[in-house]
């Protein structure tokens, strides 16, 4: 893989991001809804206030002009400000980011921690009882939508058993070990919901990757050399099988952000997802635009990372 390739890929990202931003902006401009609908419906507020706010926030300009304003400001690092809270958008996003990263990161770790051993075991013993059970559970896992499993967990663990809190609080007052314990308790459900959903599909990938590799000649060679089965699996099979899995994990990252939208709403986790949903409900266009654009950037970025990683992990694949 050459440096040239990386640079070229990076340059290609610019027009695709521009294209995405234009499409997003147009869709948002065409969508029904008005950030000042509340004001217009309230007789106590004279229409001039809404009109002056519209003019102040530049809402009366044509779409292309608004887009030019937005893109030039964005290029200078000015993300605009939220109509609903009149706070700068980057500040709003930064406020929410740590929580999202924490929950998503933990969920992803959980997914990998579950999927790797289960997938490898299932792949090395195809069609065994273990494989059958793992497969069935994996199917159930990724067929059940997160909003369903989330509500189910709340019903069981919060309402019937009363073990876990159903509302996630970002500002726990306690410190030290109690903080850690409370944080752990309130994170269990959202992390489980997201992580197991993610893990379920990952199990399938790991299993099939292992299945592909385990039949190859070099594995037979390794076995015939008399290396123990365990070493064959860990040293030779898993290492090779993980190459496509790593790229898959990278490609799936943006999907997790999407899945987190619903989970965050259910558990009231104050992350990017709940910010996006409340901004959409309030027709707060600058926030919706910024969050969706950040998500789009993530998709493009992780696609790039996946490509680069793939070439780096598997030297057989070369890019020109």
């Amino acid at each position, binding site marked *: 893989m050459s440096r040239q390739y990386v640079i070229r890929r990076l340059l290609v990202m610019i027009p695709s991001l521009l294209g995405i931003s234009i499409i997003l902006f147009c869709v948002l401009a065409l969508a*029904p*809804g*008005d950030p*000042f*609908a*509340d*004001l*217009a*419906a*309230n*007789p*106590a*507020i*004279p*229409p*001039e*206030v809404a009109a*002056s*706010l519209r003019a*102040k926030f530049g809402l009366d300009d044509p779409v292309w002009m608004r887009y030019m304003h937005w893109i030039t400001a964005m290029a200078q690092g000015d993300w605009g*400000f*939220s109509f*609903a*809270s*009149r*706070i700068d958008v980057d500040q*709003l996003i930064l*406020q*929410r980011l740590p929580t999202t990263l924490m929950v998503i990161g933990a969920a992803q770790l959980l997914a990998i921690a579950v999927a790797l051993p289960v997938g490898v075991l299932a792949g090395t013993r195809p069609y065994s009882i273990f494989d059958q059970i793992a497969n069935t559970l994996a199917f159930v896992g990724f067929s059940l939508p997160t909003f369903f499993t989330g509500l189910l967990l*709340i019903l069981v663990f*919060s*309402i019937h058993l*009363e073990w876990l*809190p*159903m*509302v996630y*609080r*970002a*500002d726990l*007052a306690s410190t030290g070990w109690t903080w850690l314990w409370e944080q752990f308790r309130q994170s269990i459900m959202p992390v489980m919901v997201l992580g197991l959903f993610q893990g379920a599909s990952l199990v399938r990938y790991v299993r099939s990757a292992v299945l592909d590799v385990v039949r190859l000649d070099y594995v037979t060679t390794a076995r015939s050399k008399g290396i123990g089965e365990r070493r064959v699996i860990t040293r030779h099979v898993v290492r090779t099988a993980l190459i496509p899995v790593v790229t898959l994990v990278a490609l799936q990252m943006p999907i997790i952000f999407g899945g987190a939208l619903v989970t965050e*709403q*259910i558990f*009231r986790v*104050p992350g990017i997802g*709940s*910010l996006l949903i*409340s901004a959409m*409900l*309030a*027709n707060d266009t600058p926030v919706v635009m910024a969050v969706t654009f950040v998500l789009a950037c993530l998709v493009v970025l992780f696609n790039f990372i996946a490509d680069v990683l793939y070439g780096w992990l598997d030297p057989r694949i070369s890019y020109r």
Partner: protein
Amino acid sequence: MNEHELRGLIDSVKIGRMSRRGFVRRMVAVGLTAPMATQLLAYSGVAMAQAKSTYKPTKRGGGGLLKVLWWQGPTLLNPHFAVGTKDQDGSRLFYEPLANWDRDGEMKPVLAASIPNREDGTLAADGKSVTWKLKQGVKWHDGKPFTADDVVFNWEYSKDPATAAVTVANYKDVVVKKVDDYTVRVEFPKPTPFWANAFVGTQGMIIPKHLFADYMGAKSREAPTNLKPVGTGPYMFKDFKPGDMVAGVINPNYHTANKPYFDAVEMKGGGDAVSAARAVLQTGEYDFAWNMQVEDEILLRLEKSGKGHCVISPGGNIEHIQLNTTDPWTEVDGERAALKTKHPTLSDPAVRQALTMLVDKNSVQKFIYGRTGIATANFVNNPEKFNSKNTKFEFNVDKAADLLEKAGWKKGADGIREKGGKKLKFVFQTSINQPRQKTQAIIKQACQKAGIDIEVKAVTASVFFSSDVANPDTYPHFYCDLQMYTTTMTQPDPELFMNQFCSWEAATKANKWQGRNITRWQSKEYDDNYKAGQNELDPVKRAAIFIKANDLVIANQVVIPVVARPGVAAVSSKLKANLSGWDNNTWDIESWYKEG
């Protein structure tokens, strides 16, 4: 009820033959608001009643953390920008107005030392000014004293159009003068019977001059204090994440003894109404949840857990059906439902009358809304005691059919009544919301029996309630025959509220459908009556005029009121909280406490 009868009633309150509460209920029954009724009494020399305090704690603090859920969290904490109730409720933790409205519409002083009244002359006899005495010794959270300068500043700040404050309507036409350090006078350009818009209630919260003076007008967005409120309220600012959480800690120097009870407060946002109800009523994780837009059936089931209960506060919101007076199906000069047209069938009074008889309000209350929607005959509010006596609403399919029959609407082969080739077929729209669709179904069924065909239509709420000029499905366009939604009465004075039936307010293409008269009803009688009300100096006469306005709307079937929608909150069984339908949910948060 005319002016004479009204005076008679006020006199009976004066001599003690009628209770204040009875009077207020009576006024509410004929279409006034409770605050307006108590203002009438104040003008007539009956001072505001001071409700007995039920506050038990004998020292400040010690109550731990108060956890409340607002399923739509506050997004900003400057009361002059607070668009929705969520923002006002959040701001109210830190900021306070001069006075509040309690559950019965009585005014309670907060930053005022007393309520203005006629006896000591603080309420001018000519109705052109009101003088507020401020409470002394009140300090802002940063230690600076609260004085008349702060009050005057709020007026200057809000009335400046460049500030784009949502409170501007309360301040733009008045003049506020400092009399001395603890006295301000609000002067009105003309005699103003309702004097308590400025500095009172939901929109009356006062911000400190010393922190906002540099950020007036166009710079208003940049004030750092917008995000870190410094007020006079019972709680001091701790943390704020827009839409997620507002946190406050006890104000150790709060101006009222022994208050507040809680050491800290946390207002959490996000999620949905049903799970918020669960967190209070079923798991007890939270102490209070706001705006329970949940079917009563579910609320009743959750209440069985015994951890909490629902508190209902009557207010001014009403679910009603509007009857289009113009023709929504003919386009004139590029707009449908144009003022020049007349509705082909709904313009017949018999049809309108029949329709009012076909709305089974009692069933709607019983089977859909329960405690959260009370059947009503009046356009303004929910009368408790006098409803059945004063007003008649009946559900009677046979009578409706009879009425139509007599008016010449005969059933055709398809069972639908027609006259002169015009069929009684209506399109009935509302927003997508389960109780509304159920209500539509109940009405459709009754109409079918009477020979009226109803086509129901449901529009996504974000479209229906938007002010999008280009979208024909918004409620101000009203491009159909009937539509239903809840109108909210944000101000205690009915003048603004009732302008939605004035001819000149008609929503048309010319005003980009921003006019407030959605039904496009044109009535000279109503207009004249309304104008008379605007210029009437005598508060009693004025009240009589607004009662007549309400009567006119109902008598002409401009709208059909369905159910009054009181405020519903979920409260844990330990928490003692005073709620009011005429003010913020948190209007009395300093007096909340826990027992047992």
